Every structure is written in C-alpha cells, then in structure tokens.
C-alpha cells in the first residue's frame, strides 16, 4: 500500500451527501465545466495537480452486475474525489487551503459535516478521515511533476521549431544569436530533472521494507 509514486501523491476521498444536494453539487460542477477556467484559475496557478476528478455516485447508482449481488440500500449519495498531485497532503495542505479556500468550499459544500477549509485542522482531519489508501498506484513518470511535464512539452515544441528553422546557409554567428534567443525564450523550462524529495519518513520506511522484501525474496505466498 502506498499513496506515493515518485513525485505524485494519489488521494482518494469518499464523502456522503444527501441525495438531492448531490444533484445541486452536480450542477455546480456543470457550471465549473461550462465557465472553465474561471473557477479553476487558482488551481491552475497553484500548478500542483496532474489530473483530478470529482465523481458523484448517486445512492442508486453503485454498479450492480448480477442478480446474486445484493442491492445497495443507502441513505446518502457519495462523492469520490481522486487527485494526482505533487507533494504529500501533509506537506501541501496549507498551500491548497490558503490559495483556494473558496474553491475547496465550493467543491465540498454539500458534503455531510464538511467543516470548510479554514480553520485548517478540521479540514485536514475531515479529508484524512474520509481518505482511502491506494493499494496500487501507478505513475508513468515518477521523476516528473506536472510542471515538469508541461515545461517539457513547451520546450520540445519550441526546440523542434527552432531546429526546423535552421538553414545550412546561415552563418555561425547568426546561429549563435538564434540559439541565445532560444535559450532566453525557454529559460523557465530548463530546471534540472531528478528524484522526488522525500514525502515523509514513514514512506521512507515503507520503501526500505519493500527493498528488504525484494532482496530476501521473502514476499509471503498469497493465499490463493
């Protein structure tokens, strides 16, 4: 079990809402989508999230695939929030909560017992209490943050155009000038790549245990 894959933290939060307020919440999301990016400007500027989603599960819409599967009889509908962001919840809760308290409150506003994003301790514990840990979490680029992916895209696109714009008959000096200009235009995309900072000493311990398990090839046989 780990919510950490390289530079990304995988968060799952499941919270109840009354079934009719779930419909209100859906309407809010609809407005957010229609007016994009108006309500998400803070989140975009914060630039910590690769991908995130909010999914309303109506109390009647838990998948039932077979008659043998008991039918769910729930009082509440539920909201499943899933996020892939850089840094851990403990490290970045203050950044989320301070940058976009209004946005967070809007997205969880109808959830039962949601405490609002400020004061922080209650919000922190609300999310933690309703968080479900990942059993398996996969990240295609453990060495890259969302910022790295986006700046890599810009840099590569620009580098392709730059390479294509060069001609054999330009002078070395003209090349040099163009190269300097290229570096200046892309100076914000040239951060070094590397490992994620350690998200916590607990995670470090888990990584260590996994290494030991692998080294000793003593992963317990599974039961089935």
């Amino acid at each position, binding site marked *: 079990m780990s919510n950490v894959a390289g530079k990304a933290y995988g968060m799952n939060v499941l919270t109840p809402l009354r079934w009719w307020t779930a419909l209100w919440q859906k309407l809010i999301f609809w407005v957010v989508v229609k007016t994009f990016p108006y309500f998400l400007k803070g989140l975009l500027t914060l630039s910590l999230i690769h991908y995130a989603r909010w999914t309303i599960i109506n109390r009647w819409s838990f998948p039932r695939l077979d008659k043998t599967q008991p039918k769910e009889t729930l009082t509440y509908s539920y909201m499943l929030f899933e996020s892939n962001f850089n840094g851990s919840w403990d490290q970045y809760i203050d950044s989320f909560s*301070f940058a976009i308290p209004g946005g967070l409150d809007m997205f969880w506003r109808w959830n039962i017992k949601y405490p609002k994003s400020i004061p922080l301790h209650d919000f922190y514990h609300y999310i933690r209490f309703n968080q479900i840990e990942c059993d398996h979490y996969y990240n295609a680029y453990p060495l890259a943050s969302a910022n790295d992916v986006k700046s890599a895209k810009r840099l590569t696109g620009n580098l392709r155009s730059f390479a294509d714009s060069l001609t054999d008959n330009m002078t070395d000096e003209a090349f040099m000038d163009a190269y300097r200009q290229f570096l200046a235009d892309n100076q914000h995309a040239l951060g070094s790549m590397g490992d994620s900072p350690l998200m916590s000493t607990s995670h470090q311990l888990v990584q260590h245990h996994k290494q030991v398990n692998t080294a000793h090839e003593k992963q317990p046989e599974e039961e089935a």
Partner: protein
Amino acid sequence: MNRPLDLDDIQGNICKGYGRYGFPKARYFFLQFHTPDQGRRCLHQLIPLITNAEPWAADGDSPLKPDVTTNIAFTYAGLEALGLPQRSLNGFPGEFRMGMKSRADILGDNGPSAPEHWDPVWQGEGIHAWVSINGRDMDAVETRFSVIRGIISDTGGVSIRPGHRGADNTLLPWQDASAVYENGKVTPKEHFGYVDGIGNPYFEGCGNDPSRLPGRGKLNKEGQWQPLATGEFILGHVDEAQEYPLAPEPHLLAHNGTFMVYRKLHENVTTFHHYVDSVAQDFDGSRELLMAKFSGRWPDNGAPLTLAPDDEAKAALDQQLASLTEKADKGDACAAAQLKALKDQWIDFTYADDKHGSRCPIGAHIRRANTRASLETQKGAFNTPSALDDRRRLLRRGLPYGGGQKEASDATEQGIIFMCLGASIERQFEFIQQQWINYSNDFHLGNDKDVLIGSNNGRLTDKHIIQTQPKSGKAPFFCSHLPRMVETRGGDYFFIPSITALNMIAQGIIDPT
C-alpha cells in the same frame, strides 16, 4: 486581531534579534540533566537570569538594556529528562519529538552533512537543553557564563555537554559565535562576505516599531503590508489559519512558547571562492554581481537586486547612497529622510516587476527563503497574493562563528549558527528547507537547489540559472557543477517555553489532567 502580548512572559530571543540590539557576541552551550530533580533545581536557579521580551528603554518603566542576555530551550529528550508527564510529552509535534538527526533525509543533511560527520557533541544522546548568552562584549558573556557554571556545579546532576569543534581542531564545551569584524568594527556579514540577516518577519504584537512593517509582513488583496498573525511564531495565539497552532497540554505549558531550530552550518570558504572565481571568468558582469545573483542581494551592503540589477545600477545606487549619507551627516534633514526612504527599499520590495527573474534570479537564495508573494504568478488567482508564503515564514536568529584566522579554508572552522523560530518546525522550517531550498517545483525550476546552502554535489545538473531579460538578445547564464558550499555540522529541534512554563517545569507542577 490578537490581543496584546505579555512580553514579560515571552523569552526575549523570540521577539528580539539580539544582534540588531548591539549584542555582537554569543555563547551557546548544551546541558544534560542526569536526574529530573537536580535538573529542575538547576532550572529553578537559572530562571532569574532569563531575558524576557519587554522593550528596553533608556528610562521610565521599561527595563534598561542589560549587558548580557540569557535564554533557554529544551529538546524532547530534555523535557522527558526533566520529568514532564507523558500526556504533555505526547502533545508535542512529531518532528520535534523525532529531533533533527532523524529528519536528515527531509532536510538534505546527506553526504558531508550527514549526522555521522557532525561535531562530537551531537553524537549519541544527552542533548537536553540549549542555553544562549548574548553580550555586548566577550567579557560580559564570560562573566555570565561563570555565573551559570557556578549554578550548575552547585546543584549537581547537570553537566555541560562537551564536543563543539573549535579552532585548530580543539574540542570545546561551548560554541562561541560572533559578528564578523572589519577593521575593528562590527559588520552584518557572514564568512562568504555577504551582508546577512536582513528582513525578518513582522508579526502582530512583536513589540517592534510599526515603521518596520513594510516588506516584513504579509500582503493583502489591496497590496498592503499587514502584520502576520502572532500564532505563526508564538504558541497559544491565533495563526494565519484562524486557529491555535498544534501544541502540548496544558495550555500553560505551551502558551507564549515556541519552537526553535539550531543548526551549525559550516561554510566552505575555499570552495566558495574558487567556484566564484572560476565562474566569474565566463560571466558577463563583476564578481560581486555574480555573488549577488546567487543570494539576491549585493554582498557589500545587502542592496537587493530588484533595486540594482546590474553593475551600472549598483554604481549609481552607491553614489546616491554616498551623497545622501554625506548630506545627512551634515544635518540635512531632507537628505536624511531620502536616505531612510532609500534604505527602506532594502526590505520593502516584491518581485512583481521581476517575474522573469532577470533582476533577481528566481532561484536566488532570498527569493527561495522568502518568496514575497511571487508564487501567485497569475494576479488574483489566490485568496491573497502571499497566500502560499504566510504559513512558511521564519524568524531568523543566530550569528556567525569562527573565522578570524589569517588563512581561512574549508578545513578551518567558520560558518553560521543558524537559528530560526516558529510555531511549526515541519510546516515552516522543514518545508522551506526541503521544498524551496533543496527543490524547486514551486518555482517551476525542477530539481534545482539553492546555490549557497543547497545540498549540491558538484554534478553537471547541480545548477543555478541566472535568468535574462526576454528579447534582450542575451542568453541566460548557467552556473553548473555547484559544489557543497555549506555543510551541516550539528543541531537539533528545541522548545522555548514561556517564563511561566519555565517556572512550572522547574517546580514540576505541569499537570495536563
């Protein structure tokens, strides 16, 4: 708005950077309590010597400025050794309980900075309390130290932990620190040659002159400076999250106390100067400009690059300063006012007009350690411009140590005793150290690290980008193969109790029931 602070209940080092008050000399030493009862008795004797945060004045009701100050703080092991109840101990935050050594991989204390290379005093257990003496001169410090040593030997069961590395590989039972002197005069410099210690945060109730607020507080939506909430720096008060910071029980134990990080940071002066010399050969600008592009401030007088971004502008600024100073010295009130307004810009600035970092590089030390609302890259995106900064501010204390040798080198003893204070070591110091000093995602600079105090290892990609003005035709300048310029040589996390709590700990009457 928080209520006024009981400055006479708060230890003085929380509200006062003693260096600024004319105390250029300091001695730090660490106590081990062998039995709780003797430890408490010793503490009881020490309390009358402890300096509180009351403003000093020449006359009137306020106390006069003393010749010497004394403050005390405890590690988690120290509070345990003094017999604090388990329930109170349990309330302390995790990182404080673990201590700095256990946090090495969070802090980048690896390679030459790894705990196994720290001074002998930090090896093993037994660091229980930190005691600091700041003095106007060394005699005052020595005198106070003898008094304390007397108390310690009288009570018994308490020892001063030996093993601080001093000059010529000697081991001392204390760590002396001192401002750097030039021609017999105190300077605000550290051993690489930078003016240091500018721009500590301003918080509600700190007792400082309100004229010091601009550039030191937080920025509201209207772009005005306001004091930070007291609870960012002192426990038992409301913080920026509109709540009381996490603190142990009972209230009286934590109220008016705070946490402190103590780090002995060795400066590899040879490595530093060699690196600067070698890079300066290719750099389009003076050696001083290159140094400024590392730190964000000109080394000689601390002027920020936002004010003077190149050699030409710096020369003009110096001329302006000299002429205003000369006129002001002759009694020209108008020039004096202009001079003050100019000097205010050392502190009162943001990076709003320097988004590309062509003046102050985005990865420069001061732009990392105090981001001044620059993380709100889209105006109006956040609740307030400094929303990402207000929970990550540090009250910096401390002084340089060592130096004074004829030939300083990496092998000689010199550096900074770095101390910083705040209500949460994890959220403030550790976050800044890990995310902003040794990593750069929040600055969109990937894994680049701080030039001066980052845990660089001399690899090609251990680098710093000196950004250029877009469309200027000039390329950005890369400082690659950054070596480890500063190494950690020891330190720990401490709790600074209020005077009330000190008395209760000494009496052994802390009761969380």
